C-alpha cells in the first residue's frame, strides 16, 4: 500500500536493508538499539533530504518538458525566407558594379544574419519564460502539498504524544527527544503561509 511506503522506507533504512541510497547503511543500526544523537539524526536527514531534492529536480524537469510538449512555443515569421537576393543572381552579368553588389550582398547577408540571430534569441527567450512559468506552477503545487502534509504529520504526532503523556511519559523527555530530532526548527511553513 502506497501510504505505508514512507514507514517501510524508514523501517528498512533502520534495518540497513534498503539499498535505495546506493550508500551502505550501517547494518549495526537496529531499531531497538538506535541512539537518538542529534548528529546521527542530522546526518540521516541530510542524506534523505539530498535524495528528495534530486527527486524534486527530476520531477520538475519532467513536468516542464511535458508542459512544453503540450504547449509548444511558436514564433511567427513575417515573410517566408527568401533563397537569395536578386543582386547576386545578376552578379556575373554586371562586372562594373561587381564591387557594389558584393558590398550590397554583404550587408544583406549581415542583415539576414542579424534577423536570424534576433529570431533565435526571441525564440529562446520565449522558451525561457515559458519554462519559468511552468516551474513556478510546479513549485506552487508542491509547496501546497508539502505544507499540507506537514500539518497532517504534526497532527498525528501530537496525538501520539498525547497518548504517551497519558501513559505517564514526561513532557520534558518528549521535548528533549523533539530537540534531538530537530522537529521544532524554524523554516517550515504552515499551509496558511501560501495565502498571500
Amino acid at each position, binding site marked *: 500500500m502506497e501510504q505505508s511506503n*514512507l514507514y517501510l522506507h524508514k523501517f528498512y533504512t*533502520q534495518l540497513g536493508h534498503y539499498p*535505495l541510497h546506493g550508500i551502505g547503511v550501517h547494518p549495526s543500526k537496529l531499531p531497538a538499539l538506535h541512539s537518538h544523537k542529534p548528529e546521527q*539524526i542530522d546526518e540521516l*536527514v541530510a542524506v534523505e533530504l539530498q535524495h*528528495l531534492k534530486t527527486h524534486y529536480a527530476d520531477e520538475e524537469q519532467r513536468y516542464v518538458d511535458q508542459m512544453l510538449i503540450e504547449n509548444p512555443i511558436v514564433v511567427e515569421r513575417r515573410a517566408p525566407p527568401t533563397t537569395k537576393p536578386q543582386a547576386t543572381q545578376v552578379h556575373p552579368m554586371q562586372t562594373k558594379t561587381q564591387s557594389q553588389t558584393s558590398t550590397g550582398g554583404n550587408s544583406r547577408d*549581415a542583415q539576414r544574419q542579424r534577423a536570424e540571430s534576433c529570431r533565435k534569441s526571441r525564440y529562446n527567450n520565449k522558451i525561457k519564460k515559458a519554462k519559468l512559468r511552468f516551474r513556478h506552477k510546479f513549485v506552487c503545487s508542491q509547496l501546497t502539498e508539502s505544507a499540507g502534509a506537514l500539518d497532517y504529520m504534526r497532527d498525528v504526532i501530537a496525538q501520539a504524544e498525547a497518548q504517551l503523556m497519558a501513559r*505517564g511519559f514526561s513532557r520534558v523527555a518528549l521535548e528533549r527527544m523533539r530537540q534531538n530530532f530537530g522537529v521544532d526548527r524554524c523554516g517550515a511553513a504552515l499551509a496558511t503561509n501560501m495565502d498571500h
Partner: protein
Amino acid sequence: MDNSAPITTPDYAHKKFSALKRKRSQDEETDDDVVFIMELPAKRRFFRPWLDEPRATITSATAVEQPPRRPSPNTVATTYHANMVRSHTPRLRSPKAQQRRDRNTLACLLSRRARQAKQLAMEQQYEQYRQQHEANLEQQVRLSLYYVRFLQQTMAATRTALPDSSQQSLQHGQHMHQAWPQQQATATKR
C-alpha cells in the same frame, strides 16, 4: 546583461552611437522620469525623454528633474540597453505624427519595464517557494524519523506495559501507521 558599450561588428555598426558618444545614464530609471507626456519638443535627435533638459519639459504630469534619484528595488531589471535603440534613417513626420510616435515609444518602454518587473517578481517568488518547499521536506524527514524511531517504538514499548488498554492503542497505532502521509513515499519510491 550589461550593454554599457555599443557593440560594433565589422558588418554592423551603430552609426548613431559612434557618431555621438553619449554617456549612458546609469540612474535614469525612476518611472517618474518617463511618465510625463510632452508636447512636441524642440527638435531632438534621439528619443530619450529621461535625458531631456528642463527647458524642454512642458509637462502635464510630474517634472523631470527630481532631487536625488531614489534607487528603487525594480531598477535592477530596467537597465539601459544601447543596442535596443534602433538607428533607422530619420523619417520626416508631421508634428502630430511625431507626437504619436513619441507617445507610442514611451508606452512601449513602460510596458516593457512592467513586463520585466513581473518576470523578476515571478523569479523571486519561485526561488522563495522552492526554498520553503525544501525546508518543508526537511521537516517532513525529521518528523518521520521522530515518529517512526521514537514515538512508535515508545508507544509499542509502553503498550506491552499496559495490557488492559493494549487493544485501543494497537488500533490507534495501526491507524497512524497506515495513514502516514505518502508524499515522501512517492518521492522515495525507486
